[in-house]
């Protein structure tokens, strides 16, 4: 189970690292190299984003990656095959990150069954709140997969508790208002927000959106359980190529 794994890892490390890739970007082969480099650099778990044509919660960098992969004709089943290859090759938990329509069109029950078959740990679907996700929650439950829910700075205490009640594995705390890939200020307000998240749930807390260097992660130590690196690696690959990934991730570790 994801939660058990995370708790065990936390006994070894003060803060865990989760990374994100857009599957197929800049190519399927390069994606696989990126995953390999990230695992080698000691990443604890990873999000594999299945591209969608309308990624409304993503900022320009991830949006463009989604669109480039789709423009080359990539299909959902290729992303699933990629994930199957990754789970077979590497011994860390993998999560899907995608949008509701991808899961819905595949068939919610079928998608969960496939995730289970290929050894995925869970999924993050930002446009699927628990209110709309009854079928999804049931399917995830059937296969003991973790539906990851999101807290945001605008989420009230009562709602946080409701979301946590439906979530498994951990809670993804969005650091600020806005989409992915913008500047976040690592400040007292963020600290207060994380304390508020902590009060609402016993699940491990991941903090993402705008985490990009060692000092951000140092700031989060003791306040969150998992630091999430998203946009920054895509930017790095765009600017310096796949070869730059491993060194960058190693540099984030204590």
């Amino acid at each position, binding site marked *: 189970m994801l939660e058990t794994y995370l708790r065990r890892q936390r006994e070894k490390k003060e803060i865990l690292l989760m990374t994100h890739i857009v599957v197929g970007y800049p190519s399927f082969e390069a994606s696989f190299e990126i995953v390999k480099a990230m695992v080698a650099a000691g990443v604890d778990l990873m999000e594999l984003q299945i591209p969608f044509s309308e990624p409304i919660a993503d*900022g320009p960098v991830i949006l463009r990656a989604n669109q480039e992969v789709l423009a080359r004709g990539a299909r959902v089943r290729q992303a699933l095959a990629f994930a199957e290859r990754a789970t077979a090759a590497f011994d860390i938990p993998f999560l899907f990150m995608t949008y509701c329509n991808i899961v819905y069109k595949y068939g919610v029950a079928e998608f969960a069954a496939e995730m289970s078959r290929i050894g995925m740990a869970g999924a993050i679907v930002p*446009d699927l709140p628990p*209110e709309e996700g009854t079928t999804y929650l049931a399917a995830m439950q059937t296969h003991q997969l973790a539906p990851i829910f999101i*807290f945001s700075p605008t*989420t009230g205490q009562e709602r946080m508790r409701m979301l946590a009640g439906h979530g498994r594995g951990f809670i993804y705390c969005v650091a600020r*208002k806005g989409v992915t890939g913008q500047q976040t200020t690592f400040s007292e307000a963020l600290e207060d927000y994380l304390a508020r998240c902590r009060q609402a749930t016993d699940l491990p807390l991941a903090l993402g959106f705008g985490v990009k260097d060692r000092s951000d992660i140092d700031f989060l130590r003791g306040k969150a359980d998992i630091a999430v690196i998203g946009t920054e690696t895509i930017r790095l690959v765009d600017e310096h190529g796949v070869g730059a990934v491993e060194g960058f991730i190693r540099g984030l570790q204590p």
Partner: protein
Amino acid sequence: MHKRGYYAEFGGAFLPEILNATFDELEAVFEAAKADPDFWPAYQDVMATYSCRATPLTFAANLTRHFGGARIYVKREDLNHTGAHKANNVMGQGLLVKRMGKTRVIAETGAGQHGVATATMAARFGFECTIYMGEVDVERQRPNVFWMERLGATVVPVRNGTRILKDAINEAFRDWVGNMDTTHYVLGTACGPHPFPEMVTYFQSIIGREARRQILEREGRLPKRVYACVGGGSNAMGLFSGFLDDPVELVGVEAGGKGLASGRHAARLCSADASVGVAQGYRTFFLQDSDGQMRETHSISAGLDYVGVSPILANFKQSGRARFEAATDAEVLEALSLTMRREGLIPALESAHAFAQAFKEAPDMTPEDIVIINQSGRGDKDIFTIAEAFEDPAWREFIKHKAEQYDA
């Protein structure tokens, strides 16, 4: 669990968590406004003194004679301030923005009509205003871009995706999740997450309420059919709202583009290319592939060129309460031409879809039958597209000459 804003299986609110509180606030303000007995009269007063309401219901005597069938009436939404029904929705939402105490509005626009209407409302109410518009639409609707900017709005051309309306909607949502404390997203049609479909329909229902009263005054009986074009579905929902409980056939007309068989169209309710999906925060029929990726759409009219459609209309389609048809670009141009020549009316390309379908059906009806066509907007904004489609030689000379003047 409590499910909000469903019309049978369509609708809902598939929102990123960050927007949840914003939607709660919006829903609360909208519910309070609806429950306030002074709100609708105040809204009507704004529309009467600022936007030429009630808009007339015009009897099209010449078209009626031409087709020799049903008596044809035209509901004149083109006479609204800024030239389209979009004004109804925008002024209504503007009143809600005031109630919420926000200071900035954002909007998406396809044809540009909703953008111009929003920029106008922002100028009138003193809000800051940013309009997102697909790059392709910026190209084909330049006159409206010009007006938005003159009205004080910032127009942001969207270069993502298919670079048309749906991509502008995504960008507006991205802006909103960062700025919801000060900003309201004035969604332009009866789509998107709850409460937008209901809220936009509520404001647009002013069209149908008036049309029903007017036809009863004029003819003493109800129409047999009413016709409206369907982009997102706001003008259609507006007109249909007046006749929901009557034995009146509701006909929605989608963009048939180059023909349904060509794949180059925007027909979500009457083509086999569409299927049920969830995107942009709600569940409806989308033009999408088998993976759930949204497809490119095509229409000669930017305002009908959208991948989704109102969940309320999707429900009407499934329940049979409304009938949906498509008119091709070519049929639309022909209907537009005829309407101009016979009646001196210049409908927008969007509205001309409704005319085209009504013209197909009018000859088979009898003079006992009445039909109402919703002229959702006026065609002035389409002058470049229409002149090009008709290959007007004098217009081409004029444009050439203008260009030379600028180069000189």
